């Protein structure tokens, strides 16, 4: 089979399955719906793997056109494919995660009346995401981009009976619209400059764009900067970067945790993919790279802090996702595109694992998501526990786990990046390591360790989840553990992404992790123990242990039994208080401050509601002008006439 047939197959199989399952759901029934969609996605996964194998053999980008979408004269848009190692890798990741989600949904949505509809949405989502990934021009990418947004809107609002769900859906839609429109403008800027939207032409013109001032004037901003920044606003809305992140935590209102997974592990990476895809454009603009880097680093640190105070298990993971996306962004901004994409891949695995684990927990807890009402679950759900732990270690970047390789590569790269603002970003990312470890293990300890805090009824019915749930968990735990070892050399060692990404001027070697391109994974792991990031991570875990596992039970027992040692323990307790106040509590306070002050006031209040209020206030001012009186209308008309006439005669 030729390559373009394979690509078409990957695209069309999920689409066809979605249409059949959605429109003909009375025809195929519940079983038919999931058999069909899973089969389609599985085939798409296999085909993607084949495609990856082909491009491994032949690294040149393969560009096809399937269909030309012509707006006659000048504007010509095509639907096609741009297959290189980046898009092939993304295809494999997308189809793999999507496959896991499909299988898992059988168990999770078992009792839902919208069963077939849900599968249809999932397959549709897969199609849109794949379209986005394979696109060979910006417009096609935008079509997939919008498709992904539309399906996410449908999924978030899936349980539209809940008012909070429909509110969240609207919020997600609106914030993404802001991004989409910036995206549109960015496309328009590129189109005005290059007169086409195909990647090939844009990449070819990128060096020129980097020198051309925008608006044809001599102003400071170049076309490349303007386009890159506008497109990044779009990307930051989709990838939930500050300040357009507010929709993602709220979108956890969707059916747990599948849509959450869709949003968190797959769809949100679209923005990262966009920047990486357009890296030849981005490297032409130092300004744009700096913005990407700083926004990413800020997001990575401050959104992580919010994870510390959340009590809803899904929200913790959601904040963690935002924070990890910040890491990816920072990597891209530093010019280390390979490291950013590497983190995207590993993150997809371990975050999917965490979400599915959380889903398994929530299922067992009868849809209770509050971690304060959990505890001690490791005894009841060993498989979930072990796999969740694997995911957590990967998330906190424990040496040897997949997340470690990618995240440390990013931190390393940012530390040595020539992009302006890199040193500040480096500090933020290092701080983020501590924060990540803290909230992750707070979650692990609250959910799986300690005393069970749920009510009797729930506790009596606690049991491990069924096989359709645990099987994907195990399947995902393996790459979460091992992916780093396998992919480290090719992805970061240099040859895999050769020629895919744009390179910073002066040939700065940021595609590589260290000065030594022949670095082995083992050596990288060994080196980690002397890096500050490792110790920050350990400190984070320790703090979590202290604050959420060790301390709660301790004071009461100590005070009662060992009166003499009490003072000593009080001394120790001071340390504890110190930790608590300075680290955990301070973090908690800052987190809460951000959550109320920053998140709710500034973002929700200032940006979302604020702009809505501004619009409302302006409208209220304008409204009385239309007072219904004829002479008012006539007067305004005549005044306009006099003014227009005066203007015309005076000039």
């Amino acid at each position: 089979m030729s390559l373009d047939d394979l690509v078409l197959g990957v695209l069309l199989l999920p689409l066809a399955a979605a249409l059949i399952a959605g429109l003909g759901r009375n025809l195929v029934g519940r079983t038919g719906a999931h058999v069909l969609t899973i089969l389609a996605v599985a085939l798409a996964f296999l085909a993607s793997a084949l495609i990856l194998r082909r491009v491994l053999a032949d690294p040149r980008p393969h560009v096809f056109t399937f269909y030309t979408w012509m707006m006659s004269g000048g504007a010509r848009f095509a639907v096609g494919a741009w297959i290189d190692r980046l898009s092939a890798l993304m295809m494999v990741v997308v189809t793999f995660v999507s496959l896991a989600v499909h299988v898992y949904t059988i168990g999770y949505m078992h009792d839902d009346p919208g069963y077939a509809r849900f599968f249809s949405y999932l397959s549709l989502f897969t199609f849109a995401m794949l379209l986005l990934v394979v696109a060979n021009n910006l417009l096609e990418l935008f079509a997939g981009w919008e498709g992904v947004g539309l399906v996410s809107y449908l999924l978030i609002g899936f349980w539209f009976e809940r008012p909070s769900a429909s509110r969240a859906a609207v919020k997600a839609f609106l914030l993404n619209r802001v991004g989409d429109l910036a995206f549109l403008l960015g496309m328009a800027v590129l189109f005005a400059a290059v007169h086409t939207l195909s990647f090939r032409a844009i990449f070819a013109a990128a060096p020129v764009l980097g020198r051309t001032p925008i608006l044809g004037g001599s102003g400071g901003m170049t076309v490349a900067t303007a386009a890159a920044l506008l497109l990044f606003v779009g990307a930051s809305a989709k990838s939930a970067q500050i300040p357009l992140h507010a929709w993602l935590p709220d979108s956890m209102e969707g059916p747990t945790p599948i849509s959450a997974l869709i949003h968190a592990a797959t769809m949100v990476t679209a923005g990262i993919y966009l920047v990486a895809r357009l890296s030849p454009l981005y490297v032409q603009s130092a300004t744009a790279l700096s913005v990407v880097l700083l926004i990413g680093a800020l997001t990575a640190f401050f959104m992580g802090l919010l994870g510390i105070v959340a009590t809803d298990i899904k929200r913790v993971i959601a904040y963690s996702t935002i924070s990890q996306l910040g890491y990816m962004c920072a990597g891209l901004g530093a010019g280390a595109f390979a490291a950013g994409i590497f983190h995207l891949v590993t993150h997809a695995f371990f975050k999917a694992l965490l979400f599915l684990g959380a889903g398994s927990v929530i299922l067992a807890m009868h849809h209770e998501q509050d971690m304060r009402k959990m505890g001690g679950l490791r005894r009841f759900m060993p498989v979930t526990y072990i796999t969740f732990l694997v995911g957590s270690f990967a998330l906190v970047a424990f040496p040897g786990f997949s997340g470690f390789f990618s995240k440390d590569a990013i931190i390393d790269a940012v530390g040595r990046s020539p992009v302006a603002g890199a040193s500040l970003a480096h500090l933020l990312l290092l701080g983020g390591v501590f924060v990540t470890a803290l909230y992750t293990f707070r979650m692990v300890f609250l959910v799986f360790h300690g005393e069970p805090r749920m009510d009797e009824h729930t506790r009596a019915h606690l049991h491990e989840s069924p096989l359709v749930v645990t099987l994907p968990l195990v399947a995902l735990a393996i790459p979460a553990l091992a992916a780093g070892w396998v992919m480290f050399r090719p992805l970061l060692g240099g040859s895999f992404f050769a020629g895919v990404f744009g390179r910073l001027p002066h040939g700065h070697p940021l595609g590589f992790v260290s000065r030594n391109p022949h670095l082995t994974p083992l050596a990288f792991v060994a080196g980690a123990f002397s890096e500050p990031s490792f110790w920050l991570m350990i400190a984070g875990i320790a703090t979590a242990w202290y604050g959420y596992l060790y301390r709660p039970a301790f004071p009461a027992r100590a005070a009662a039994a060992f009166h003499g040692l009490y003072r000593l323990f009080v001394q120790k307790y001071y340390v504890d208080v110190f930790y608590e106040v300075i680290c955990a509590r301070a973090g908690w306070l800052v987190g809460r401050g951000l959550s109320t002050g920053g998140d709710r006031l500034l973002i929700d209040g200032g940006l979302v509601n604020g702009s809505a209020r501004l619009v409302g206030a302006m409208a209220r001012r304008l409204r009385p002008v239309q007072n219904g009186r004829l002479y008012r209308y006539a007067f305004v008309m005549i005044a306009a006439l006099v003014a227009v006439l005066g203007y015309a005669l005076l000039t």
Partner: protein
Amino acid sequence: MPLFDDLAVSAVVFAIALAGMFVNRKNLVVLLMCIELMLLAVNTSFVAWSAWWGGLSGQVAVFFVLTVAAAEAAIGLALLVVVFRNKRSVDVDTIDTLKG
């Protein structure tokens, strides 16, 4: 300078009628009359230009404008009757239900 004089007269009448459109806050009937007055000013202008050009086009236009004005007057008066039947008044102030 007959052209300028005629045009000036027409402009003055036009301006008066326009001002009458919003200074009059009481009676819809007077609004209709102001419209008639505006069309009269326009017609005078046409006639003046027509004389200046020495052609007939302007006068033909006056015919059409008169026709339109007649039809317009018919509809305006009919609307006036409808409004009066609904509100028992032709006060401009009373028709302000639609607003905002």
